[in-house]
C-alpha cells in the first residue's frame, strides 16, 4: 500500500481488489500497479469493510469477487450500499458463476472469470481519472 502523489500533484488512483484467492489478487495488483494504480487488497468482504472503515483511504473503485468465505461479495455489497460513505464507490464484480443474480447488487459491471485484463482496465479508466 504505497501512497504517492503524482507529478502533477493529483492523487494517485486507488483500486480495492476483494478476492479470496491470493494468486488472483497478486496478478491484478501487478497489472494495476504497472498502470500507476495503487492497489489495496482484501481476502473477503469483512476484511474489505475493515479496510474501508478503518483508514483514511477511499478507493476510486472496488473490484469484487462474489464467492468468498466469511463474508461473500453479495453480503459485502449490501453492507456497502447501506453505508452512505461507501455506497457511491463504483464497483465491478468478478464472478466464476455466470448465472448468479447480480441485478440487485447495482454494480457497474460484471466480468466473468477468467477475466480479460484489457477489458477490466478499460472499465477502470471509465470510472477512475488519472489511470496511465
Amino acid at each position, binding site marked *: 500500500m504505497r501512497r504517492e502523489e503524482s507529478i502533477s500533484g493529483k492523487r494517485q488512483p486507488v483500486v480495492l481488489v476483494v478476492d*479470496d*484467492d491470493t*494468486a*488472483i489478487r*497478486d*496478478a*491484478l495488483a*501487478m*497489472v494495476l500497479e*504497472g*498502470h500507476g494504480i495503487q492497489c489495496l487488497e482484501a*481476502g473477503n468482504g469483512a476484511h474489505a469493510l475493515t479496510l474501508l472503515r478503518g483508514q483514511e483511504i477511499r478507493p476510486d473503485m472496488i473490484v469484487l469477487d*462474489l*464467492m*468468498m*468465505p*466469511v463474508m*461473500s461479495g*453479495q453480503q459485502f455489497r449490501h453492507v456497502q450500499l447501506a453505508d452512505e460513505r461507501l455506497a457511491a464507490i463504483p464497483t465491478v464484480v468478478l464472478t*466464476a*458463476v455466470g448465472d448468479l443474480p447480480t441485478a440487485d447488487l447495482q454494480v457497474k459491471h460484471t466480468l466473468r*472469470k*477468467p*477475466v*480479460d*485484463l*484489457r477489458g477490466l482496465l478499460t472499465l477502470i479508466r471509465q470510472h477512475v481519472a488519472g489511470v496511465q
Partner: protein
Amino acid sequence: MRETTYTAGDTATHAPALGEAAFRVLVDNIRDYAVYMLDPQGVVVSWNSGAERIKGYSADEVIGQHFRMFYLLEEQDAGKPEQELQMARESGRFEDEAWRLRKDGSRFRAYVVVTALRNTAGELLGFAKVTQDVTARWQAEQELRESEKRFRLLVDQVRDYAIFLLSPDGRITTWNRGARRMKGYTADEVSGRFLSLFYLPEDVARGKPVRLLKQAAVEGVAHDVGWRLRKGGERFWADVTITALYDSAGKLYGYTKVVRDLTEQLEAEQLARAYEAAREAIKVRDEFLSIASHELRTPLTALNLQLQGIKLLMERNPAAWNPERTGGAIGRALESAERLSQLVDTLLDVSRISAGRIELKLSTFDLATAVREAIERLAELIRQASCEVHIHAPEAIEGRWDRLRVEQALMNLISNACKYAPNSRIDIRVERDGERARLSVTDTGPGIAPENLEQIFVRFERAVSSQHYGGLGLGLFVTRQIAEAHGGRVWVESTVGKGSTFTIELPVVTAADSAQNGDEVG
C-alpha cells in the same frame, strides 16, 4: 313325495278300516297333489281337488277321458302315455319328472308317480296317479344351474388371473383360461396333480405348498407373494390367495386358488428403481462437474491473469522487465499451474475412491509424528485462517497404515476447521484406546446442526451453502472412505454455537499382527 305314494297294498289294508267314504274324503281334500285313478286302459275314473287345481279340469270334464290328454302333443304322438302305463304294469311303479299340459294349454313341470293296482289274485285293476306341480322348484334349480354355468364361464374366460379349485388334499380339479395362459399347462396336464407342481423345488423342500394349504384350512385364507414356476421351468412373480371351502356342516371340501402374475409389475418397478438410481447418479455427476469446474476455474483464472499481466506489462514497458522481475512473475504463474495440477490429481483420486478402488500402501509409522508433520505442511493455511492449533499427542502410537492416506484424511479435517471456523482455536488429539487409535480435530467454530451431521459425510454435501465456501465438498467423504478402508470409522460430535469435534478411529495393527494373520490390510 314318498309318503303320498299309494300302493295297492295300502289301499287293501287301510281302506276297509277307515271306510271307503272316509278315504275318498281324505284323497279329495289333498290340494297340493293331483291324485286320481285310471282304469287298466288309461281312462280317468276319479279326480280329486288337487288334480282340478293343478290341471285346471273339473272332474266332469276329465272322468271318462283318456289320460293322454295331459301330455305334450309330441309325447302323445310318440306314445309316451302308453309306454309309461306299460312300465308301471310291468314293474308295479313308474316315476318321472316331465312337462305336462294344463287345460288352458300352458305347461307345468310335473313330478309323476304311477302305481299299478292289482287285486289279491294279481289282476290289474287300474293305476293310481299322483302328480305334483314342481314348476317353481324346477325354475329355481334351473336359475341356479344357469347362474353356475354363467359363473363357470366367467371364471373360465378370465385371462389375467389363474383361478382354479383344489381338492381337500390339494389336487387340482378345475382350470381356467388364465391358469392355462399363466402357467402354460392345459387342464388335462394338471388335473389331479398336487399344487406343488407350481412351486420352486426349494420351496417344496421347505414344505411351503402344504404350509399354505394348512394355513388356509385353519385361518380360512392364505396369501403369499413369491416366485412360482411355469410349465417350461420359467419363474414368475406371483400373488397367490388360497381360500378354504367349507360346506354347511363345516367340513372342508376344497380350496379356491387365485393367482396373479406380477412379474411385469415387478420388472417395471425394478426398471423404475434402476432409472431413478441412474438419474441420481447423473445428477451427482453433474453436480460434481459443476463444482469441479468452479474449483478449476479459480487457479485457471489466476494463471490466466498472471500471464495476461506479464504480456501486458512487457508490451507496455519492456525495459522494466529484468530477469529478476520476469522470474518472479513467471514463478507465480507456475505456482498457479501447480495448484491446477494438484486439483486435477485430487479429482482423479476422488473418482478412484468413489469407484471403490482405494488401495492402501501400508507401512509402519508413528501416528503422532505423522500428525505433527501434516500440521507443518498446513502451516500457511492455518496462518491465513488466523487459527491457533494445539496438539495433544502424549505418546507415540505405532501401527501399520497408509501414511499418505491417513495424512490426507487428517489434513481434510484441519483444512475444514480452518475454512468453516476461522479465527478460532483448533485442538488436535492423538490417543490410543486399547487396539484403536483416535485422531480428533476440535474447533470452536459455529458447529453443525444435528440434522446435517450425517449428510456432511456424503459426496458433494455440506452443511453450509457452497456460495460462501470454496472446495469440492468431498473432503469428509474422502476421509470416511480412507478410515473405512483401514477398517476404522469417522464421526462428528457438534454443538451449534460451540464447535465440532471430528474423530478418525483406526485399528492399531502391528507388523507382527499382520504377519501372524497372513493378511495385509487393504
